[in-house]
């Protein structure tokens, strides 16, 4: 009944505009289909004991030659001390990253948008964005240049003041903070740009009206900027919550140079799975871990969306 009252919409026809847009999206679509959707049948590997049959190819090996083992491949994630460590680390770091990943970029975006000198603002923005483009492997060499025990910058400073060299790669407690710092340093600029774009899109009339009413800078931020940013903040939040069971492999493996002494604070699920795959080439376990991460990620992303919608019905992602 309700549909009858709606105004007639235009007839669905494939227009020239649509063609252009389709072609534009084609490379991405193909990429996703080829590399994300087609290989997805590989998740059966998580429930199989994969045994290669030489000469018959991968598909035969997987579907005919390998036995089903049910959930046995998932067990390894929950055995021994490492299981506790990797779940604790993955979740712990991600919680901190998510909170800081919203708070800091928003604060910085607001500060930069308030800057009088546009030139300085741009310079700040660019220099904060730059680390985003550095590979963790490159960063690991920078970090090493600072922290190396005999030639590192920090130890040279310590020695020049008469102190004793510290072997930073043996001090796991310190790395908890260092890893958080590195992650913030590298990702801050990217998040900031997103928020800055939204801020510059806010209608200036709102601020003018507020000024006339005598609102201070702080009040303008509190009652105009932040509410306008809220939809984006919630989207960024939901997206990052979806990745709460994943970790930035480069940060935890490369930047720490895979130092054994740090493994209590650097062992995340991805690092553990990588070590297994590289050393033992056990694709069953790796697939099981990947599937579990994705499934849990889906649950958390749905949960976060629900939560956000409870608070603000319009702010949900879907």
């Amino acid at each position, binding site marked *: 009944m309700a549909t009858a009252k709606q105004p007639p919409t235009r007839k669905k026809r494939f227009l020239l505009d649509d063609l252009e847009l389709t072609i534009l999206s084609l490379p991405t679509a193909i990429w996703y289909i080829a590399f994300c959707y087609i290989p997805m049948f590989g998740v059966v590997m998580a429930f199989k004991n994969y045994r290669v049959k030489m000469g018959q190819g*991968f598909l035969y090996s997987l579907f005919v030659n390998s036995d089903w083992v049910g959930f046995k491949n998932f067990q390894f994630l929950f055995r021994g001390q490492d299981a506790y460590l990797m779940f604790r680390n993955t979740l712990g770091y991600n919680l901190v990253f998510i909170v800081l990943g919203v708070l800091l970029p928003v604060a910085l975006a607001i500060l930069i948008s308030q800057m009088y000198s546009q030139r300085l603002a741009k310079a700040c923005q660019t220099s904060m964005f730059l680390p985003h483009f550095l590979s963790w492997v490159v960063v690991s060499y920078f970090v090493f240049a600072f922290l190396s025990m005999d030639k590192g910058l920090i130890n040279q400073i310590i020695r020049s003041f008469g102190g004793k060299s510290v072997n930073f790669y*043996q001090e796991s407690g310190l790395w908890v903070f260092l890893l958080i710092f590195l992650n913030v340093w590298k990702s801050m600029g990217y998040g900031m740009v997103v928020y800055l774009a939204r801020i510059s899109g806010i209608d200036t009339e709102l601020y003018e009206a507020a000024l006339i009413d005598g609102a201070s800078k702080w009040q303008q931020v509190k009652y105009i900027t932040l509410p306008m940013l809220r939809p984006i903040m919630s989207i960024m939040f939901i997206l990052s919550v979806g990745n709460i069971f994943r970790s930035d492999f480069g940060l935890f493996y490369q930047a720490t*140079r*895979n130092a054994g*002494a740090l493994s209590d604070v650097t062992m995340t699920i991805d690092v553990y799975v990588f070590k297994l795959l590289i050393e*033992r080439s056990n694709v069953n*376990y790796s697939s099981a871990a990947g599937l579990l991460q994705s499934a849990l990620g889906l649950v958390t992303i749905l949960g976060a969306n629900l939560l956000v919608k409870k608070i603000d019905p319009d702010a949900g992602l879907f």
Partner: protein
Amino acid sequence: MKKLVSLLLAVLMVSVLLAVPAGAENYVRLTWVQGTGADAPTDVAMVNEALNVISRERLGVEVDIIYMTGDQVNTSVLAGEVYDMYFTCDWHNDFNTRVFEGVFADITDLLPVVTPALYATLDQEVWDLAKVNGRNYAIPVKKDFYPEVFLMFDQELYARLGMEIPDEMNFLDLEPYLEAYKAEYPDLYPFMRSGSAGGLDGIFNYINRDASIGFPYSAAGTENATTIISLFEDEEMLARFRAMHDWYNKGYINPDAAILDDSSIDLKVNFIKTGQGFFGADAIWSARDQYAIQISKISGPYKSGSGVRGSMNAFNVALDPERLELAMKYQELVNTDLEYRNILRYGIEGVHFIDNGDGTVTRTDEGRNNYAPWAFSQGSYSLSSNEASPFIQVDPNSWDKVFAGYEHAILAADMGFAFDPTPVEMEIAQLTVIREKWMAQIVTGTIDPDEGCAAAIAEMEAAGLRDVIAEAQAQLDAHLASL
């Protein structure tokens, strides 16, 4: 203009399509996956062509030699890619695992029939030690297959200091040499290490490297000869670890050793190094490091299955019988033809190396930079000519002395046992991660080994170390009972 370009492109594409079948004549093209570190040799295509000239004439085959790192070959095998021949050992393309996966062809019965000349190059004892469950799946490389580990010293430096370097020494007696070096070069580290064991574990006979289990060679002949333990609870290893920790504290070892990999250490510096080797390896190491090296043995030789299986070449199980025979005949060529073997190792004469005419060859700079593949993995290492050294006198017949030295080698009590890890796969996977966490710290002396080993063992026990050892022990006992 546009039309012209597209026309040209079209012609180019068609000619490429036509060119592919035209190049290949009626030679069988075999593929051989060889191992490599991070840098594969660059002049491979050129050398392959020179090799094919010989193999075409002898056997009517051409061979593509493909260089893969350990990770690459693991992935390739898992994906079911088929190559004809593979380099395999216990630390690259793991032999036992592959055999139990059924990737390699059983060649026990074919060896003496198809390739009698190849079969005759090795003693029966070697063929026996290479067996898994009584069958041969690969051809051991004729080389230093009974492991010996050496220390490498700067000859000139210690001669100047008046310190004598014995042919054999106890690793624990290294300290005076470290001390003297440190006095000479206060800014350098006399014992630069990376996170890998670098031969320090050469006294331990691994049953399974990932789980770090096995038994010390020194146990041979005692009542513990076949008692499997963890590397981290072996008293001899502990003694070495303690010495390393002591030297680490004294500043003889670089403090960042545990987080360095092999490639980040400059071998041209004359610090004391370790390596698995043989009589005559001093020439190879001198050529590599560009200064005169004098060697001193710290362990070996030990006769064991893991030693013989330390470098082998195997055949894909998927080959049809004709192709398998051809591939075996090809391996016979590699293992018995000096000219072919030298090209494989050194490259093209006049470009990559110069034949000195006295049974030795000299690599050119081009050879050193563009074609220096692993030589120990390519089939009979001892067949190829020795590399001359500008630094020390090289004996062209050094291998005779190596093999003569094996007559008195200690025979490890595992008697060619090969462990099937599949029943305890999950446990071993976890032990691998734990080993990786502790090994580098302990073996470089970075941490106190008594605390470190105890902690490592505790973590490993939580992950099922004792179950793995029990499984391995049961398999070993069954194997010994079946002999």
